[in-house]
């Protein structure tokens, strides 16, 4: 009987001097892989415009139907994104999200990125439906607007008076 006790304590003692495998979360956090997929973020271009153009490709790529996008036309005086179209509404239900990253992959402008942030617990379901006000990053990236794809939107124009050679000959 005493023998068994000694054998048991031996295991305890052995493990006592081994290196620890747990960490003191939340003071201390485990390093995450670079490819870790946390909650979403909508990025901005270097000039501050949102990268998201409201194309809804993330919505259609999402296997969990977690994303809702509604686009609208930019106000040329106060554009939110380059070009004509921006995401008037961009919502993700983080409880439905399976963090597969398909949305990120579908994004044609690179606006959508899954961040490293994973601490998303909350007490109501509604508070885990995040809208654009929480998702659009307040940081600018150093990516310039690709003007060749999304020219500056100057609003609706009337039909031009036709004049040969007067327009469109920009040799850019």
């Amino acid at each position, binding site marked *: 009987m005493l023998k068994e006790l000694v054998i048991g304590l031996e295991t305890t003692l052995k493990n006592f001097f081994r290196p620890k495998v747990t960490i003191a979360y939340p003071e201390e956090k485990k390093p995450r892989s670079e490819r870790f997929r946390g909650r979403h973020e909508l990025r901005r271009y270097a000039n501050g415009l949102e990268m998201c*153009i*409201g*194309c*809804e*490709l993330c*919505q*259609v790529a999402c296997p969990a139907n977690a994303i*809702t996008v*509604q*686009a*609208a*036309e930019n106000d040329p005086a106060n554009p939110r994104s380059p*070009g*004509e*179209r921006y995401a008037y509404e961009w*919502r993700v239900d983080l409880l439905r999200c399976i963090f597969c990253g398909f949305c990120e992959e579908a994004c*044609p*402008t690179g606006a959508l990125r899954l961040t490293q942030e994973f601490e998303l617990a909350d007490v109501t379901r509604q508070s885990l439906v995040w809208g654009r006000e929480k998702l659009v990053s307040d940081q600018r990236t150093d990516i310039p607007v690709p003007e*060749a*794809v*999304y*020219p500056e*939107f*100057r*609003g*609706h*124009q*009337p*039909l*031009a*008076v*036709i004049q*040969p*050679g007067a*327009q*469109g*000959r*920009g040799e*850019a």
Partner: protein
Amino acid sequence: MSGERVSLTIDGRAVQVPPGTLVLDAARQAGVEIPVFCSHDQLDPVAVCRICLVEVEGSRKLVPACSERVREGMVVRTDTPQVAEARKSVLEFLLINHPLDCPVCDKGGECDLQDLTYQYGPALSRLADAKMRKPKAVDLGPFIVLDEERCILCRRCTRFDHQVAQERTLVVGQRAHEALITTAEGVPYASVFSGNTIELCPVGALTSKFYRFRARPWDLVRVDEICHGCPVGCHIQLHFRANVEGARLERVVSRPFEPIDDGWLCDRGRFNYGFVQSPERIAQPLVRPLGAPRGTLVPTSWEEAFRRVVGRLQEVLATQGPQGVGFIGGGRLTNEEAYLLQRLARQVVGTENVDHRVAGEAAASLDVAPGRITDLDRAAVILVVGAHPGQSAPVVDLRIRRAAARQGALLLTLGPVDPELRVPHQFLPAAPGHLADRLEALAQSLAGGGEGVPPRVAQELHEREGLLVALWDGREAAAGRALAAFLQTWQAQGREARLLVVGDQANSRGAEAAGLRPDLLPGYRLAADPEARRQAGLAPEPAAPGLSTQAMLEHAVAGRLGFLYLVGANLVETFPDRALATAALESEAFVVVQDLFLTETARLADVVLPAAPFTARAGHLTNLEGRVQATGPRSTDPAAGLPVEAWTDGQIFEHLGEALQGRPLVAGAGELATALAAAGLGSGTFAGALPVALLHEASDGSPTPSGSGEGLVAAPLPTIHGGGGTSRFDRAYGERRPLAAVVYLNPEDAQRWGVVPGDRVGLEAGDGVVEAEVQVTRRVMAGVLGVPRGVPGLAWNRLTGAGRVRVRGRLLEEVG
């Protein structure tokens, strides 16, 4: 199919087609897919996009399949490396200056260029230089935004405008890489059919102002429907987008159905859909508090509203009997709902006072030479009597344009105002109230006489062999009788004749067939016929003969009609005598209005019941040719997101019936279907038509102008973008097509009254003055004032109700 056939092989498959068939169509028949951009079934071949190039044995170069006609023994190949290379090159070429902004393009996901590039195109472009920049959002017309960069110059839109609409407003301007779609300077593309170009566009160059960026094709739930805009009954598809608030109707597209619409829609049908989700819809039942003046309405519950309606109805029945109750409306209801309404009136209440005619029309059909819309395609002569097809049945007007411009049909118009037809035609002026005289002269001219008929017209009418199609607007009973006589004379000469009656509302004809007339039971059986009454479960003798709309209003004013029930009828705006309509509504009668919006009429009601829009109901509509068509399924009331408690019209009738008689109005859907089939309104059939004998003056709602001498006779003109309800309460639509208060005068009259175009004048009629701007046109005959119906701020029916109109000269411009 008869006659000879041409045999050819396509990709080794033998196929036989009639001579003159295009290789493209032969290939389709053989099950070989040939890609196209510029080619379209309804447009002449033009072969500008070159994507359909195929190899034909014996031909040194590739030939475009969309313009090449088949030949006997032809050997066509579409599966060779040369063809594949040609397609790839054409696509690479088309994409050189195409912006590839698919993620922001409305067409992305349903784009021919996208699909064909994916299928046949190169994966990469060899173009190293920057693409050419062109304007991105050009306002082409009221409803269309043009993205010049995306255009691939297939010319479908311009060809539609030239060949189908015959308007020639939209053209290709400039040359080569600078070419673009445009119009003349300062001329917007404001055709009534402009929306069709959006659907024709194989890329995202032409986009709808309303649908712009609203959804992507894969978001949309598609529901087949019949257009409720006018009696043509075009086939449409509603595209809803579901979101957190509920479903929103985002756009309306066509659902090609050749016997009616050929795949075309008018702009009213295509763009006037926002009303279903308008914040101005009545959200709750409203009642006038006891003792409060007319115009005061407070929200209440459905229970309370029904209690008021039923309570008052029983009171009136007790004091005035069934003759004291009247039901007006129904032209916007389905056949089923119209039937329920007449059953509620006749069987439950016991009154014969039911009428669907709310705009002064006499009939919605006539049992003389009933025609079909497709008859217009083979017409030798088209006679338009009083109708303005471009405004009240636009898609039928496309067929008229085609017949006159491309098939050489003789087009005659008869009435006080020449309708705006875009093709050559002969106008035979006839003063309001005198259309019959003119038609009688025309009939005499067939026999060689006919005073006052231009000799050229008389001769043409004499010589033309073949089919005559007449289009009548259903106004002036005498004109209907004269037209019937004219058609019979034509037929007696061994020539074919057909008649189409353009009803006032989308389902006027269905309402008529369902018995919403004081003199008719369902199925065009006479209300006075004891046998028919017995079969319908009614007393053999009506307690009193039924009253027409006009008579009901007069009785209400006289205090003999104590209960008036209006269904989707804005009488103040639509009835030709505004004074009478207003007086009736302001009388002691208890007025119930069932509508979507708080119209001028609804404001004067005692109880207002909020009705649900057409999307919320299922049933059948009967179009102007009598075709009974199933509407879409009961899909959704897009106002579900708003706090709206609307019921469909049918639900309201059923509830009222049950509340009044203690058992259901009809035993079930089966009984209803049987009853409608017995009335000749079975699904997919053609409805009967009104016997000419019922075209008597008592049923005529069009007031004949009284008095003579000084003054003009007002002739109401239908307005496609106007109306008493749906267009007025669709903000976005109204903003795109603002309606000006304009009246039309003949140049002679303008001179006589001393006005010049653009003047604002006062029009004196009866006791009031109506203000409007004057336009001068020869389309209006002398002595007539053309007044558009359904224009906010222009009370047309104050001018038609009260004899002759005097022009009070120019109003002084206010000096600021």
